[in-house]
């Protein structure tokens, strides 16, 4: 009896080990494959030349990606932090419970909506009705709504982890609520807020569907907010979908993975610093 149990246990244990290796195995497979095929095609020329009939570089896409990331963050970070501050610092259970509930419901629902629906909304609202056309602005506005839940939630966590004694100390010294938030709470929550920002950057860089439907597929450097411009992800999608050049697609995919890896390392570095 006992032996039989042990046999069963070991069998299950073996299965658990195996299944865990599938996850890591797949990651290694995808990384190795993309890097081996892609890295040889990455050159300084590839990274810095434009994309037109003569050149097939990705400089415009890198530029557009940064542009749209900055524009989206400029909109979503202040709004998200503001919302989180309200939720954590100003929510008086009795007075504003309905509003708070509505906001939480909205944040939760928004975080579950697939990006294609954000794209669809951006297309009808920002591109068509507000007449922004396929543009960085329309893309950035759409992406801002998309990353808002991430920023609000992560900032909320950061604010909640600031000990109440900090607040009490500040109030006891005669500081008002606003001053306490500005001078005490926000500075102590900064690593958490930075994590929120970095997570959002990762999502924006990796996003395709929503950007494709709102910022369009212009292959030049976007000259301004109203100009169309494709990001790296959209570029990779087009290369793969149209079968234009698989070499360039591998190289673009490798560049994307490298950018994401750097973003991830920064985020987890911050997270460890936060724990200390």
């Amino acid at each position, binding site marked *: 009896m006992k032996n039989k149990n042990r046999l069963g*246990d070991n069998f*299950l244990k073996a299965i658990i080990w195996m*299944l*865990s290796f599938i*996850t890591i195995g797949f990651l290694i497979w995808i990384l190795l494959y993309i890097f081996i095929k892609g890295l040889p095609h990455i050159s300084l020329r590839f990274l810095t030349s434009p994309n037109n009939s003569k050149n097939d570089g990705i400089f415009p896409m890198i530029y557009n990606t940064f542009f749209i990331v900055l524009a989206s963050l400029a909109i979503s970070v202040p709004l998200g*932090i503001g*919302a989180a501050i309200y939720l954590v610092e100003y929510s008086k259970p009795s007075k504003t419970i309905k509003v708070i509930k509505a906001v939480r419901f909205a944040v939760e629902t928004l975080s579950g909506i697939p990006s294609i629906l954000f794209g669809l909304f951006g297309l009808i609202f920002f591109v068509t009705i507000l007449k922004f056309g396929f543009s960085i602005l329309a893309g950035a506005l759409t992406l801002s709504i998309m990353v808002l839940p991430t920023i609000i939630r992560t900032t909320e966590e950061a604010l909640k982890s600031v000990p109440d004694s900090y607040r009490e100390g500040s109030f006891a010294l005669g500081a008002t609520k606003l001053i306490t938030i500005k001078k005490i709470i926000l500075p102590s929550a900064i690593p958490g807020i930075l994590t929120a920002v970095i997570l959002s950057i990762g999502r924006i860089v990796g996003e395709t569907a929503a950007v494709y*439907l709102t910022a369009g597929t212009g292959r030049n450097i976007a000259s301004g907010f109203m100009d169309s411009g494709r990001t790296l992800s959209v570029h990779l999608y087009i290369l793969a979908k149209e079968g234009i050049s698989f070499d360039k697609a591998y190289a673009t*995919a490798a560049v994307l993975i490298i950018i994401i890896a750097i973003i991830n390392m920064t985020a987890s570095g911050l997270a460890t610093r936060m724990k200390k």
Partner: protein
Amino acid sequence: MAFSRSQGIDKVYTNKYKWVKARESIAEKALFLCALVSVLALALITAYIFIKGTPIIFKTGLSDFIFNKNWSPDPANAEPSFGILPMILASLFATIGSVTAGSFIGIFTAVFLVEIAPTFFVKILKPSIELLAGIPSVVFGFFGLVVIVPLIREHFGPPGNSLLAVIIILTFMILPTIINISQTAIKAVPAEFKEGSLALGASHIQTIFKVILPAAKSGILAAVVLGMGRAIGETMAVILVAGNSTLMPKSLLSPVRTLTANIALEMGYAFGDHENALFATGVILFIFIMLINILFSTLVNKAGGYNEK
């Protein structure tokens, strides 16, 4: 003399106090508006997608829209037909397949991480899962296109672009979500449960399957449901490997088109009723997502809250 002086100070104080008070209340109102933005955004998104999408559903009839197998939306046709049953089924099959496989692998991996893995292994596995979660979906799709699709073509016959390819790609895309949330649920099981079971003479594996996993059930189910939402909503990766045929999915190897793919593929050139029918496709997708969201929040409440990190 003294009287008037103290009155002056009072006045200065009152003015300053008023200003401070005004500043405080302006700040509170501004922050309140920030909080309302997400409510407003959700309302606008819902309203616009439904306003654009529902008229065509009523025009063709709800049951015709959902159960008609024929999608030929080109306005040049004498009688354009807007049936999205093949897309609904493709989305459902792809979601069920990937969530089944993803849950199986993901839950066991979560168990491994929390209960079994040696520390050095956790140190490798955790950042790997984080990186897997960060890889852009279009890279998954591209990898599927150049690796998975040819493999399927070689081993099971053409075309290779198929429901099976979609399921494989989606499985790995939703794995990090399922692993992370199940892991949180498993960690939240009180240590006493485990200690009690071990003290009664149960083996570690028995404790995992008979005590820890049942105790973490709600949280794990929440993880599975969240994975479901990710799978049904994925677009670009799916387009690259699915084959995108509008015919009914017949087997794992037939090329399919999901609801999301239908929107993204045709939005570029659609107008009139065709464009509206794509928004209607969005409405159906939206309804699916809403159902999944409701299921998710019910489960999370049961599990006593969660943290996606």
